[in-house]
């Protein structure tokens, strides 16, 4: 290698310098940068490795670790054996957290809520998810998710970026980097955090960060209210007309600078300012839910009228992907029921069940579900046994990374399908485990991306969302 020939890393600079100026959001630059899966790929067009089934993703992240036992994975045996100790043969000496690890006994806890079969497919959902049950035939439930971390911070970081270590790009940043946006007036990756959730465990901006990818791939957080995107609104007293005048003057300054300095990067900078100007119109437009029909609003439930609620964010997500945003991630906190689980999970499901189902129905009626992948789930599951004392109507569950459930819909996923099987205690996986890396590989596969080939060289190593692992779960693909 000639030292004067650029490395893959250093290619970023001249590439951006040459091409960013020709595009609005800088997505053209992505087009040129592409997926650097092989030696020459740095200059190949971006995009997919094979035809994509999903063009976009809405990830309904349920932060805190929802209990599978009261939602998606019925275990009648736990009811039979309620309060009996977890057999050692089931636990197999696996590690527990310091929360319940020293507990003298680990009493099994049966679900307080019943399950029913829904739809043609007859997949079981708990009574807390009756709305979700209505779209059962569109959903694929994975009951055998498993992960590596046992505490929130490492686990949610692992789920959102494929690594427990801070500083890796998030799922949405990879999608933005690899595929770009389909709308030049909006960012490719947008994040919505529920304002009506119980904030028991905090969220961190690293969960939607760009890590070592260029910062244009960071998730942009949309907030409810007057200023959906940070610093979007002009200072008070600066009209759009005045701002236009400023940009025109800025254009002249930069044109003169370009002529004097012969530097195309000057154009790139101006293009970004113009894009910002267009965002000032396009963002409030897409954030305005008031034009939605009463029927649509009713479908999402009453709380859709509360700005920033999970329901409002679901509707917002639909509006964003309609406009071509590639990856929308919702975060809904409050699922960390170490104690008081029955009350807590009732509240969580009430906040999320109807709107999640409405999102599926809404996407479907607009013909968007077939190429939009929707995923609902958290960073780990919960234990079959109670943390703390179990009483007739109260118990809690500790963190459980060895198996948990989530559902996927649309975007080329099998509807009315259950993948994987856990044992009767819901403690271990019996059949078809799906690691977080596998889920990521599958998600990328549905987006038309080979997870082994979408890489980014950083600090001398080729990094990818799935690190050195991950297998596409073919069985969940329609």
């Amino acid at each position, binding site marked *: 290698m000639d030292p004067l020939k*650029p490395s893959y890393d250093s290619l*970023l600079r001249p590439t951006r310098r040459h091409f960013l100026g020709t595009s609005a959001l*800088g997505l053209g630059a992505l087009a040129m940068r592409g997926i650097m899966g092989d030696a020459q790929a740095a200059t190949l067009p971006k995009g997919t490795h094979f035809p994509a089934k999903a063009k976009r993703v809405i990830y309904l992240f349920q932060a805190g670790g929802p209990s599978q036992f009261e939602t998606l994975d019925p275990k009648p045996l736990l009811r039979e054996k309620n309060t009996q100790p977890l057999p050692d043969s089931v636990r197999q000496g696996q590690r527990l957290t310091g929360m319940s690890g020293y507990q003298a006994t680990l009493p099994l806890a049966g679900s307080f809520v019943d399950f029913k079969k829904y739809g043609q497919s007859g997949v079981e959902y708990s009574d807390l998810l009756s709305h979700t049950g209505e779209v059962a035939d569109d959903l694929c439930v994975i009951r055998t998710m498993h992960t590596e971390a046992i*505490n929130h911070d490492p686990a949610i970081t692992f789920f959102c970026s494929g690594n427990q270590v801070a500083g890796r790009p998030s799922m949405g940043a990879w999608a933005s980097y690899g595929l770009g946006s389909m709308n030049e007036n909006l960012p490719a990756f947008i994040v919505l955090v529920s304002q009506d959730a119980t904030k028991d465990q905090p969220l961190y901006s690293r969960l939607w960060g760009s890590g070592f990818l260029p910062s244009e791939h960071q998730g942009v957080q949309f907030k409810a*209210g007057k200023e959906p995107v940070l610093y979007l609104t002009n200072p008070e007293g600066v009209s759009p007309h*005045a701002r236009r005048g400023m940009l025109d003057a800025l254009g002249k*300054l930069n044109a003169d600078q370009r002529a004097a300095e012969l530097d195309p990067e000057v154009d790139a900078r101006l293009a*970004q300012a113009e894009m910002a100007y267009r965002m000032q119109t396009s963002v409030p437009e897409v954030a305005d839910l008031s034009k939605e029909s009463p029927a649509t609003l009713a479908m999402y439930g009453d709380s859709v009228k509360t700005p920033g609620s999970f329901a409002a964010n679901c509707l917002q997500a639909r509006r964003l992907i309609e406009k071509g945003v590639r990856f929308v991630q919702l975060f809904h906190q409050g699922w960390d029921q170490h104690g008081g689980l029955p009350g807590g999970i009732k509240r969580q499901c009430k906040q999320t069940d109807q709107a999640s189902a409405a999102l599926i129905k809404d996407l479907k009626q607009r013909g968007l579900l077939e190429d939009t992948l929707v995923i609902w789930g958290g960073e780990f599951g919960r234990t079959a046994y109670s943390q703390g004392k179990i009483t007739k109507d109260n118990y809690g569950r500790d963190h459980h990374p060895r198996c948990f459930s989530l559902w996927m819909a649309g975007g080329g996923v099998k509807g009315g399908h259950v993948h994987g099987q856990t044992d009767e205690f819901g403690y271990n996986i019996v059949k078809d485990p799906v690691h977080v890396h596998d889920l990521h590989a599958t998600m990328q596969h549905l987006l038309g991306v080979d997870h082994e080939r979408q890489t980014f060289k950083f*600090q001398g190593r080729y990094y990818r969302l799935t690190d050195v692992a991950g297998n596409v779960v073919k069985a969940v693909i329609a």
Partner: protein
Amino acid sequence: MLLAACCLSAAACAEEPAVSFNRDVRPILSDRCYGCHGPDANKGRKAGLRLDELAGATKKLKSGDVAIVPGDVKKSAMVERLFSDDPEAIMPPPELHRPLSAAEKDILVRWIKQGAVYEPHWAFVSPKAAPTPTVDDRAWPTDPLDAFILKRAEQAGLKPSAPAERATLLRRASFALTGLPPSVAEVDAFIADRSPDAYEKRVDALLSSPRFGEHLAVGWLDLSRYADTWGYTGDKPMFAWPWRDWVLKAFNDNKPYDQFLTEQLAGDLLPDATQDQRVATAYNRLHRMTFEGGSIAEEFRQDGINDRVMTAGYGFMGLTMECSRCHDHKYDPISQRDYFSLAAMFGDQNENGLLSYHGEVPPPFVRLYKDEAERKKEAALRAAVSAAEMALSAVRSEYVGKPEVKVPVPVAHLPLESFTKSGVENTVAGGKPAVFERRGSPEDLQLAPGVKGQAVKFDGDAGFKLPDFKQLGRFDPFTFSAHLRLGEKNARATVLHSTGFYTGDGDATGVELLVVQGRLRWSMIHLWPNSAASIETTDELPVGAWRRVTVTYDGSSKAAGLRIYLDGREAKTTVLRDTLHAKPRDNALEIGSRSRDAGFRNGSLDEIQLWRQSLTAAEVAVLHGLDVQTLPPSVLSEHAKLRLDQAYAAAWQKFQDAQRALAAHQESAPAFFAMEHSDLAPKSYVLTRGEYDKPDLTKPCEPGVPTRVFPWNETLPKNRLGLARWLTDPQHPLTSRVVINRLWAQVFGAGLVATSENLGLQGDLPTHPELLDTLAVDFVRSGWNTKAMLRRFVLSSTFRQSSTPTAEAREKDPANKFLARGPVLRLTAEMVRDQALLASGKLVEKVGGESVQESANRRSLYTYRKRTAPPDNMLIFDAGSREVCQPKRLNTNTPLQALVLLNNPGFVEAAKNLALRVRQEAPTVEAQISQAFRHVCVRAPRPAELSALTALYAQQKETPPQLAAVTPSPQVDPKAKKKAVEPAPALPKMPADPALAALTLVCSTILASDAAVTSR
């Protein structure tokens, strides 16, 4: 480099261009082959073949093939595999997704043909100074470095550019050395100064400005993951800014880099370490720490050590050490054992992997005294304690005979005969009952026959608490006595504690009586394990038998003040810890259980009694019913001394007073986390796959270094100080190169090695290897003098060139690798904001101190850094979160940056203040605009720029700002507040005066222009 090739036959050289292993071959082998055929011995080396060294590559393989036969392409099995059509046979395999190009295959074939000569990786060979090259344009170089640059540029057919305009040059130098632009007055003076050393004088002024350290520190803070919070869930404040100020001062004082490195890695191990040298070691402790409930301490202790190794790897060696945590490095000569040998150096502390729930400074720590007098006072108080201790032990009791021994009345007595609904009866007059804890109902605890009537049997999860029994401090004597029976040989069980909320040992504080592997452990703890006094019985307690256990603490803060008695006689114990440094938290006493810990499962207690004094051995004996007459004389004389001897009582009082005075003085100074070597540190082992819970006990690791990077000198101590000495050995191949490369990147935009974070095999090769090596050697010879090196860079002809390329130069060298023109840099997040503040006249220049909010108008390096929510406008301009070491920032253009520049309240405020300022400074609008432009961009605006801005002013003035009438903010229902949507921050507001508003928008436009955000 080009000539550094190989010794080939003349024929071969004549036929085809010579191949260089380092330049041409290794990058290919490393990138495509070493993953499976490289140095990693313990994981996945395929077919037993290694291609990173000649012996391995030419070895006969199991298959009978030989991969490489030097000089013989036909016999080299590798060649056939390179050109195979069979997807099963072709190398590299298709699943690598990085096939070889025809040109790359050709290089490998020619290399084998030319003799397959291996060379060591350039960065692992000590740098040697090269002679200064002769160049065509002899007049151009001002520094030898210019000759190296010019030589390479000439080879590429490029001519150096003309010198930059003076205003532009001064702005460039000013940003490079201080991170801020020069003032208009400074520029004018510089332009007017025609003396030959005008520029040199300005550069020297910049180097001696306190702004220098503030600027240089930023890159080091990124590398050292400095922040103001601990990160992770909860993200509590981390008291670390004194370390940041140490860095600042080190740069401003031009501390030699070898000392800079040594004090941070091992300041505590230096002879007679000063307070500052110990503060420097906080470098190692800036990694994140969690207090999330239920976290496992050892997991996070290992993660912290890993972070230290990784950070030092990037910062000092430019190597990716963390790869070797799980397996031998795939590319660089660092084995997994090397990694854990380094980990042994960085894990040499008696520390806890978790932060306490209450966020106390995690020990080990030093006290930060504000001056020498305070420090001396501590020494004096220590001496007073020692003297008082001596005096105490010198007291000779004169008592002979048999003293009367009477057991004092306890302050609490729980006979445990029955439960009430809410708790346990306390029979001491006026004593409050104990209340149930954890599970809150009596049915979780059983009454069973005990020594005297009933006793309580615990289930491990429930217990009871004495809410009023608090204030068991380090100076407060205390006694606990009860009949105790083990129902099993508990691995760990809490009998008694005053810890309160608890996660692992991270929160252990106060008194604590545990059963550990059947032994009794009795402790007075500030924070376990570093700051505690603790003893443990040598013998195990029998299971199933009743023993009367009495534990006493005399309030001395020492392990010697802790005693354990069994059936009235003192038990044999060993000291586990005798380093209690500060006071415990104050919590109520709890018996039989503890949240998130193992309670006294299957254990029983009867007749619990508590005293707020330390019973003597004789009293304990009498309490158990032993006859005073049978007690040994030593026990009785001790009793007499403690209870009856006035002289002893006075000496004891003096000793306690001296201790309290010392503690009060210590606690008046903040505790600051630092490194402190301890022989009690856990041993280091290779962790299988790097997993904290899989130490390979057959592979203990002594402290050590990766010796294949640079050999270890056996005369060095095997600790962090030895590591620092090893790194600063003048022959060390990496240390000096890494610094030079980083300084170069800071001044010239990109390093001589573009991958400044990785000088290993997967990193880029240097563009100017001889220059890098010569500078590295010069640097060491100069006494590791950072300022002198930067001075050379900035005074060089290379730096002083105009940055504007000719069309031809742009075509030939778009990225400016040859430096035949001056550097162009997008300002960093810090520079962009600091420049706006400075131009507005509102920058508050105060060096150091506590971190602040942006509204304080201090330089951005002082902005409070919350790791889980870093300042938005900094992230948008490519700064990182400081959660982990960041060796390099990317440099992007995004629309969000434009939004920050035009709408962020700080930038709008700066524009407004700049407008106000220039209205004062210049008479006409045009002059005001011109002046504003110069405050930001330093040079005067060109005519086209000035006319665009004046036209903007005229246009904006005609349409004055539309401001909403001031309305009182709506009443907020305080009850509804919690549920309400977070209110959007108030928008910045334009001035109502149309002229000022128009000028503000002009200033805002200037701040967002390319001329503002770029150093050219």
